[in-house]
């Protein structure tokens, strides 16, 4: 019984995004699609222990959910004959209750529709993230609330409001026209990368849930690559996430943050690195340059250095400069300065950082980066002062622990 439940849950996580996407097209309603999905899941739990798990559990759940949504749509149509104020229903030719052995063509389009609708610019970023994780990722509301450290009620409310806006303002359930595709795709990529970063940079909270977020972002990145393989930035984004995530095991040891320089590189996940590098190569062959590819290239240079001192910092500095052209932010400039420090010496890095002090004074990594260069120059008093400032600003216990250790070492 426990096995059946675990299996059903695994199928649910894997297939729910795909199934919900088609249910939404048929019913025109996120809520009804979710309901049908949950009912199908419940009926699987009820009948599988007796009948045995079907050969293709995903197809079984898809078919069960489709039957339910078609019934619901029919009931709705009958009611609507009397009261025709609900006009949003998408007039679609609902497929008959056939068995879905394979993914028909239309299903891929449905998933793309769902991705673009969840990440529609008329929804705020928080709503985009919550909706994407809930509908495409199949995460439960408590899971998402837990991962983002917001009360469950707040997250539930966020989802309700987003779904209501989609319905009432009629955010279309479609892939944007070619002329708008690039900017809309950028919004989708931003949402996925934000989910990844929330998991990776772990501003606080439970580390298991955090790993889940990274895995989910990578899974969504894969979906996007499957559906739109011709977009180099999709490949670049997935490569970037895989390459960064490959360092996870080496990055935090016993609750302490380990810098790239000090990480045990034998703990890096070589299969993720291999996949990331291959994806990046594929992306570069498409010859559509973009910021995710540049960031992936930077991560790749780190991944390819067997030892910290073999890192090609001059190349990394050049890539950060390139990234700054797309994304002119002081944080990118800070990374550039740090790379310059590594290739041309700490003084050169400090000179570049000096010009960023007003923009980044409230950013703990700015002070931590400065402190690191001062430490390398053996300007101990200045270094301690900068580490203290970083410690005042850092929120996460893992980061605070790291900074405290540095201060102790210098004193």
């Amino acid at each position, binding site marked *: 019984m426990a096995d059946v439940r675990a299996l059903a849950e695994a199928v649910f996580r894997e297939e729910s995004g795909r199934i919900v996407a088609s249910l939404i097209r048929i019913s025109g309603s996120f809520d009804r699609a979710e309901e049908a999905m949950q009912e199908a899941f419940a009926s699987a739990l009820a009948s599988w222990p007796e009948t045995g798990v079907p050969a293709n559990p995903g197809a079984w759940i898809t078919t069960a959910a489709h039957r339910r949504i078609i019934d619901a749509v029919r009931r709705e149509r009958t009611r609507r004959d009397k*009261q025709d104020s609900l*006009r949003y229903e998408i007039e679609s030719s609902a497929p008959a209750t056939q068995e879905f052995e394979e993914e028909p063509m239309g299903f891929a389009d449905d998933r793309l529709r769902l991705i673009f609708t969840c990440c529609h610019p008329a929804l705020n970023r928080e709503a985009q993230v919550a909706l994407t994780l809930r509908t495409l990722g199949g995460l439960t509301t408590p899971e998402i609330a837990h991962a983002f450290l917001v009360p469950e009620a707040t997250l539930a409310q966020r989802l309700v409001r987003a779904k209501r806006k989609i319905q009432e303002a*009629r*955010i*279309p359930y479609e892939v944007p026209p070619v002329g*708008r595709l690039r900017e809309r795709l950028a919004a989708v990529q931003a949402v996925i990368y934000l989910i990844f970063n929330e998991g990776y940079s772990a501003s606080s909270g439970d580390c298991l849930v955090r790993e889940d977020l990274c895995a989910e972002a990578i899974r969504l990145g894969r979906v996007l690559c499957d559906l739109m393989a011709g977009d180099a930035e999709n490949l670049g984004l997935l490569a970037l996430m895989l390459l960064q995530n490959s360092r996870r095991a080496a990055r935090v040891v016993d609750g302490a943050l380990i810098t790239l320089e000090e990480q045990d590189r034998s703990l890096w996940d070589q299969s993720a690195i291999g996949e990331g590098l291959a994806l990046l190569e594929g992306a570069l062959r498409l010859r559509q340059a973009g910021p995710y590819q540049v960031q992936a290239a930077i991560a790749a240079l780190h991944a390819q250095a067997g030892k910290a001192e073999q890192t090609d910092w001059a190349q990394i500095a050049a890539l950060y400069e390139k990234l700054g052209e797309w994304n002119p932010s002081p944080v990118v400039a800070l990374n550039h300065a740090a790379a310059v420090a590594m290739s041309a010496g700490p003084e050169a890095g400090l000179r570049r950082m000096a010009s960023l002090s007003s923009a980044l004074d409230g950013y703990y990594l700015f002070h931590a980066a400065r402190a690191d260069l001062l430490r390398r120059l053996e300007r101990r008093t200045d270094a301690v002062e900068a580490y203290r400032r970083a410690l005042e600003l850092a929120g996460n216990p893992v980061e605070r622990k790291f900074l405290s250790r540095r201060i102790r070492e210098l004193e």
Partner: protein
Amino acid sequence: MRYMMLVYSKELDGEMPAEEAVRIRAGHAAVLQDAAQKGILQGAEPLAPTTTATTVRMEDGKPLITDGPFAETKEQLAGYYILDCQNLDEAIEWAARIPTGCKGAEGCIEIRPLPMMPKHG
């Protein structure tokens, strides 16, 4: 779905340069003409400036009258369009064409769906 597009602009003192006035008028005319041709134009009007506004608020069952708009904001409501669009994306495309600037200052459009009134009986 009908959408109301609320045009917000800065109300700046002084005359608008003739060239800009011509450009803005032409911008509105083009939107009005296109929308009318497509049969989706359901209304559009400019509003007189907020110096002419009066706000009425009921307090203890009596109307409390104040001079001016309901709130002092950086940009003020300057006019509206009502267009019948397929969905929000189409409404956004139209909104992007409506001039909002005034004497060089940028304005904005707020899009609000007009839900149908519930039927009586």
